[in-house]
């Protein structure tokens, strides 16, 4: 337990110390949300309902739609890149200090995953500073719902990150693998645009992408789909169907959690084989 805490603590201390990274983490979401989102929002509205409005889709606000996706993206990015520290520790030697200590490899792996998870949750919560600028309203209850959801998502993604990091020796290699994974997972998750009318092969990718369910959970919490009309929900792609069944929030949580459980086991096994 002490070991898990020590490994975790190190990652958290370093997260808060790295001011440049902290600040830089706002750059991507800002660009997507404000520059890209606001820009495309007008065009989308024109296409969906026309300026003069009316119709069921007049309420479609693209920036609002994107916001939960951006939170998902931030959590995803932070969690997966937190595993970069594992590769860097190998490169800069600190991994030896860790591996020659009497700590069990399992505790080290768990500590690393929890470290990445914590950092990603904090980073995700920091995205709420954009709330006043985009016109969504966030209640205290929502934040209480968001934190455990973020934790679950971040845990799963951190475990995937650790598995990748355990397989690789250099930071460059790691970054390349992540870039290749990052964009398809992001584009096919519904984070940046609604996933409607996709070709079958793409739809399959969407359904096996853990990020899809993660983003949908954030949307469920923030957008409050209960109050929306059915056509609007449909346009926003909020009803994800798996084998003809509209998946519920709880089911999504179970799916993400299960994927996380599998990967944390794989990552731990793989990490335990690391040679000092």
């Amino acid at each position, binding site marked *: 337990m002490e070991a898990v805490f*020590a490994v975790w603590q*190190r990652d958290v201390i370093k997260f808060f110390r790295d001011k440049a990274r902290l600040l830089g983490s706002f750059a991507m979401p800002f660009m997507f949300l404000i520059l890209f989102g606001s820009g495309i929002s007008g065009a989308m509205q024109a296409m969906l309902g026309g300026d003069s409005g009316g119709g069921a889709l007049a309420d479609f606000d693209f920036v609002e739609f994107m916001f939960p996706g951006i939170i998902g993206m931030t959590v995803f990015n932070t969690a997966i890149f937190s595993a970069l520290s594992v590769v860097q520790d190998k490169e800069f030697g600190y991994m*030896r200090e860790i591996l020659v200590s009497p700590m069990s490899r399992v505790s080290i792996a768990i500590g690393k995953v929890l470290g990445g998870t914590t950092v990603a949750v904090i980073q995700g919560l920091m995205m709420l500073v954009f709330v006043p600028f985009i016109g969504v309203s966030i209640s205290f209850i929502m934040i209480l719902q968001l934190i455990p959801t973020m934790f679950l998502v971040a845990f799963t993604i951190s475990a995937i990150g650790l598995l990748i990091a355990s397989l690789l020796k250099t930071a460059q290699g790691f970054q390349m693998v992540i870039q290749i994974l990052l964009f398809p997972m992001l584009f096919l998750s519904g984070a940046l645009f609604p996933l409607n009318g996709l070709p079958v092969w793409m739809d399959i990718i969407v359904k096996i992408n853990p990020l899809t369910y993660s983003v949908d959970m954030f949307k469920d919490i923030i957008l409050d789909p209960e109050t929306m009309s059915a056509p609007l929900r449909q346009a926003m792609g909020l009803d994800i169907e798996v084998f003809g069944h509209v998946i519920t929030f709880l089911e999504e949580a179970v799916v993400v959690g299960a994927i996380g459980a599998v990967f944390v086991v794989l990552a731990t096994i793989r990490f335990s084989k690391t040679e000092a």
Partner: protein
Amino acid sequence: MANIVEVNNLKKRYKDLEAVKGVHFAVGESEIFGFLGPNGAGKSTTINMLSTINKPTSGEATINGFHVVSEKNKVRESIGLIFQESTLDEKLTANENLLLHCRFYKVPKEKREERIQEVLEIVDLSDKRKQIVETFSGGMKRRLEIARGLLHYPRVLFLDEPTVGLDPQTRNHIWEYILRLKKKTGITIFLTTHYMDEAEICDRVAVMDHGEVIALDTPDALKTDVGGDIIEIRTADNYQAKTEIESNYHVDVKEADDVLTFQVNRGSEFLVQFVREFSVEILTVNLRRPTLNDVFLHLTGREIREETASKKGRGH
């Protein structure tokens, strides 16, 4: 004196290379034990096996009574390790690095503060405690690593080339700290080096070459084995001189960097007569006591430095 490290026919084989070919030795409690040899002699591989980093191919080793394969964690608790390359987290402060180490090694909470102060004092870094390690000089980082390696009160401190990459002055300081440490705590120190002068501080030295321990004794005894004093001469015609010395005095002459080296008993008296009698023109002459470098030369016919500087290597 009880043996804290015992090594029995330890071997390490990589695919087509036998890095360590069955070494035997034992290290006594509170001893400073040195591994001397050129790069690639198997020093680090041996240390890695003793410190549970690499698994031996065969053979046995125990540290503090614990087996290095079957009782890894007990061994890890019993040793401190200082590697050739830094293993500090440079983004953290000295204090944070030390605190994490305490956690890794389960140093009891109430003892941490006291121990951190104690080890920082040994290496003279008490006033740098709150500084980020990134701002430290190479020597300070090394000292901090030594301090960190002591936090969990190991019985044996392994130092793998602890002064590599440091300037000579800093190197001397590091050795002062190590000696001070030994005096203060009585900890057993196991080090490797390819610097001859550094091996002089050891109580005993194991000379390693090509994966084997080829000699093991106190530095003085090793030097005595070389036999007598060392005479180094440069002459106008080294070839002629070499032939003449070998036939007149029946000694083995070695040539390196234009310098002829040979050993004689009672060097001072010999030299006077030698210079008077010698027919080849002598450019320079030097008489000295043997060093560990001569020991290595005597044992292997090579100098350690040659291999470090260039892989070409002469005389082998």
